[in-house]
């Protein structure tokens, strides 16, 4: 049994929250720059240039890439041979509190959805834990902006809707969102499981590097087909027209019920942020 002090979790969450908000992951930057080269519509080229300039400034000045520094989603993979001394949830929330205060990040969380009073420190985190083999603790901090979160959708399709129904739902979701989620977007898709499982898979799909296709050939081909179709919609960067509507479509899937075909689409903007560390 390996001991991990809850304080180390707090320190790591605080650091990751700040870094994730100021430094765009390399795979996302590479994909945006590649899309800029493939884009031939002048307005779209201009927007992509500004987006590239923006994350350059954020990195140089160590300021947030986007003012919506998000709700702080924290994913923990806890080795089954780890013992945490201290309260885990409080340690994570304290990390969010410190990171968002010391890092000059925006506090965007209200204490309850109807009475809407700001908690003032961006807590609580949206915390997911998973028990895995081993004696390590992997922490991923993924701040999620709500311009794109609000454009996300979930449908409980029928098995008879099949792959065509799933494709139609995903493409329609991106098309209806249009300019709202700050395209170019990254499309996280979760197919299968239950109502809640599909949504979580879609969120997790956003954390897979955009350079990496599904390990399952069938789904990898589906990702490529969907990306091509979405980039034929013409929405373009910021919705002003152009090819680059999406940077990637990442699909995660799970076994499901004989009666069901859940599909969740979690949209993220070009500022797709996540940062991990292993304790």
């Amino acid at each position, binding site marked *: 049994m390996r001991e991990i002090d809850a304080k180390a979790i707090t320190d790591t969450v605080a650091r990751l929250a700040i870094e994730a908000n100021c430094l765009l992951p390399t795979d996302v930057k590479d994909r945006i720059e590649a899309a800029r080269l493939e884009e031939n*519509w002048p*307005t*779209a080229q201009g*927007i992509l240039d*500004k*987006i590239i*300039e*923006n*994350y350059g*400034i*954020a990195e140089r*000045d160590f*300021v*947030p*890439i*986007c*003012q*919506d*520094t998000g709700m702080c989603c924290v994913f923990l993979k806890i080795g089954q041979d780890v013992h945490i001394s201290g309260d885990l949830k409080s340690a994570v929330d304290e990390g969010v509190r410190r990171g968002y205060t010391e890092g*000059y*990040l*925006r*506090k*965007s969380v209200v204490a309850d959805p109807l009475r*809407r009073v*700001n908690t*003032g420190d961006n807590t609580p985190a949206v915390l997911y834990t998973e028990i895995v083999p081993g004696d390590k603790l992997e922490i991923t901090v993924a701040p999620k902006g709500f*311009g794109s979160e*609000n454009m996300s959708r979930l449908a409980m399709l029928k098995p008879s809707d099949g792959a065509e129904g799933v494709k139609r739902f995903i493409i329609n979701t991106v098309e209806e969102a*249009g*300019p*709202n*989620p*700050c395209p170019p977007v990254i499309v996280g898709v979760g197919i299968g499981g239950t109502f809640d499982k599909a949504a979580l898979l879609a969120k997790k799909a956003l954390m897979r590097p955009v350079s990496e296709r599904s390990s399952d050939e069938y789904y990898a081909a589906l990702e490529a087909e969907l990306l091509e179709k979405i980039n034929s*919609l*013409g*929405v*373009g960067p*910021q*919705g*002003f*027209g*152009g*090819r680059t509507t999406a940077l990637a479509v990442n699909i995660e899937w799970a076994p499901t019920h004989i009666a069901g075909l859940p599909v969740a689409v979690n949209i993220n*903007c*070009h*500022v797709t942020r996540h940062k991990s560390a292993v304790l």
Partner: protein
Amino acid sequence: MEKRITLPITRETARSIKAGDACLLSGVIYTARDAAHKRLVELVEKGEPLPFDIKDATIYYVGPTPAKPGRVIGSAGPTTSYRMDAYSPTLIREGETGMIGKGKRGPEVVAAMKEYGAVYFAAIGGAGALLSSCIKKAEIVCYEDLGAEAVRRLEVEDLPVVAVIDAEGNNLYEKGRKDYLSSL
């Protein structure tokens, strides 16, 4: 190429700006998003004065990050505008001539823009670090309790925006997409 516009925008100027115009805005703008809009419209409904002069005012839908020491403001890009659709027609009627945000607007907003003369601009969503460099001064006007959502008075210089919907109801989101697709 870009149209230089000095604020405030009069009704007449608002009517002269066309969807698709790339503009650089300089002068004073006010910030407000969901919670502040709700309070402003409640004041109008009660017949009470607004905390700033709404006549010919331009409102930027933004909740900036806190300023780091030595800086005027933190990152300050636009938020999605449709959440303000319930409130914008009232503010336009009261005198608002410019709105800066991103994304689609509802028909009730476009109707008010046509009736009174107002223009809707989009700034680049997700480019908050870049846009903040155009903000030269920032001070809180009211609703400090709302934190990032407080109403701020900003002095901007050459803030890059694009007119998306004009006072005739023309829409760049529709036209831009159509033009691109017909170019293929």
